[in-house]
């Protein structure tokens, strides 16, 4: 199996981001909320990326921020995939009213822009990491539901599913043993895209001041904290912006490759 160079680059960078997130306390040169210098010190030997709006080491903030952003986005993605695919498969297998009910409910939620709905919900609920993950995961599960249902509808009419039904297998067996293995590749390709969406979403919420709360660092929040410096020509706020872009692009590269591989499996053009 030959891996194209773009996918390889994507994998290396994605891996690096995740490793940095996992081992953040070991890599970061300073503490997350430790004030170690002046306001917006330029990059130096001691502070590779300079310091932020209140004198914290920007590199350390970036590393810890990556940890929060990646953790929240991953947790939300896992939640949306588990919920969305199980419900989507169930809707396809059950058909009838269950399918109608779930599908119309999802249509309803998707008729409201996700950011607007999240803002409405967050104006009532306390803004904690758990609530953020739940809100993002639930909102995003609607998209996974649609994909999972669409894929599973094609699979449920296959003979082997019919055979399993006639054998008297339960729903659990049909969903996890018959449909899931055959629906896995499009779902895996979608996984990357949903993860990026979650990263962009949590960053946007934090940037608006309604996501991760200070002093906890996260990329969107770092942009917000340092945005006022831009007008004076201090580019500190652009650093997390580049990190978000780099993560999004590298995950995209991997997802593109997975997607093209799965379409070629189906006999489409690679």
């Amino acid at each position, binding site marked *: 199996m030959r891996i194209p160079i773009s996918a390889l680059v994507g994998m290396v960078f994605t891996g690096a981001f995740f490793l940095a997130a996992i081992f953040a306390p070991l890599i970061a040169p300073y503490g997350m909320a430790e004030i170690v210098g002046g306001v917006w010190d330029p990059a130096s030997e001691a502070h590779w990326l300079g310091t932020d709006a209140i004198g914290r080491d920007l590199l350390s903030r970036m590393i810890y921020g990556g940890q929060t952003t990646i953790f929240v986005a991953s947790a939300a993605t896992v939640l949306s995939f588990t919920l969305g695919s199980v419900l989507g498969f169930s809707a396809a297998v059950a058909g009838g009213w269950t399918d109608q009910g779930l599908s119309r409910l999802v249509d309803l*939620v998707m*008729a409201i822009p996700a950011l607007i*709905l999240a*803002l409405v919900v967050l*104006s009532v*609920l306390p803004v904690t990491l758990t609530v953020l993950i739940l809100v993002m995961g639930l909102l995003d599960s609607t998209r996974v539901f649609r994909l999972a249902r669409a894929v599973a509808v094609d699979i449920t009419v296959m003979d082997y599913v019919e055979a399993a039904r006639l054998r008297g297998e339960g729903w659990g067996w049909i969903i996890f043993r018959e449909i899931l293995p055959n629906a896995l590749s499009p779902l895996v390709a979608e996984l990357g895209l949903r993860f990026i969406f979650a990263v962009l979403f949590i960053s946007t919420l934090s*940037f608006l001041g309604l996501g991760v709360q200070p002093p906890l660092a996260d990329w969107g929040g770092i942009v917000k904290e340092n945005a006022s410096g831009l007008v004076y020509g201090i580019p500190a706020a652009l650093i997390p912006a580049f990190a978000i*872009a780099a993560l*999004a692009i590298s995950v995209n590269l991997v997802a593109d490759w997975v997607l093209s591989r799965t379409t070629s499996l189906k006999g489409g053009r690679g």
Partner: protein
Amino acid sequence: MHPVLTLVVQRIALGLLLLFAVSAVIFLGVAALPGDTAQAILGQSATPQALANLRAEMGLDQPALTRYFNWLGGILTGDLGTSLSNRTDIATAIGQRLGNTLFLAAWAAVISVPLAILLGLVAARYNGRWPDKLISGVTLSTISLPEFVVGYLVLYFLAVKWQLFPSVAMVFPGMGIMERLNAVILPVIVLVLVVLAHMMRMTRAAILNVMQSAYIETAELKGLSPMRVIWRHAFPNAVAPVVNVVMLNLAYLVVGVVVVEVVFVYPGMGQYLVDHVAKRDLPVVQAVGLIFAAVYIGLNIMADVISILANPRLRHPK
């Protein structure tokens, strides 16, 4: 009745039904969430008596369904309620801001739609060659960036480094149209960049899809120039998907505008919404949220109606 008309009426009726359901989600869904609005306003140390008084004043002691129909009735007659945080009438506060937001979104739409279609045509014409690769590469990277990042990149380079445009989009009543345009130029650029990529890519894909048809080959064999083939034969058949994508992206402007207004401190609906989410001012959040959702659904209905009208197979029933 003409069958196309029936389809259009059906679609609009369905949209109105959806809007009604969405208003229920925004109001009743929020009411069902754990969390006590009165407690949130007064804080943890409030006495039970103060809480009870505030609940009675806000009507929170009534059942949720009664409050929902009161709220909905108010909105239909133009009364959006009163803000909790500063006790002002929401409808008057919104009036000015809605105009500002529409001004911004309208300019973004006017610039991005023709530009996206043009770039899509060019990319389809030079499919696989360098103009296509250049356009696709640039648009792929703008897709990967969140709106606020595009916003700050544009702000840093165009307003601070090269000092071409003002960095803060200040508009106030009584401003001339030229001054106003100059003030909003950066937010408009950002919104255009945000929606351009997706529209352009879908236009390109829709045209390339049509290009595989037999009649395109005929047109090519007739000796028409490639641009003429695309313009006269491929584009008319790709209009329905393109219009759909254009409308969906205009609907997406609704979301983009919220973030971009915060970046450029623009006094519009998005800024208003975000401020009041932070203040936990539920009536304002629900009213503004419903307006955003209504615009979004309205544009989606328009997309469907236009693609019904643009479909010649439906126009000439057997």
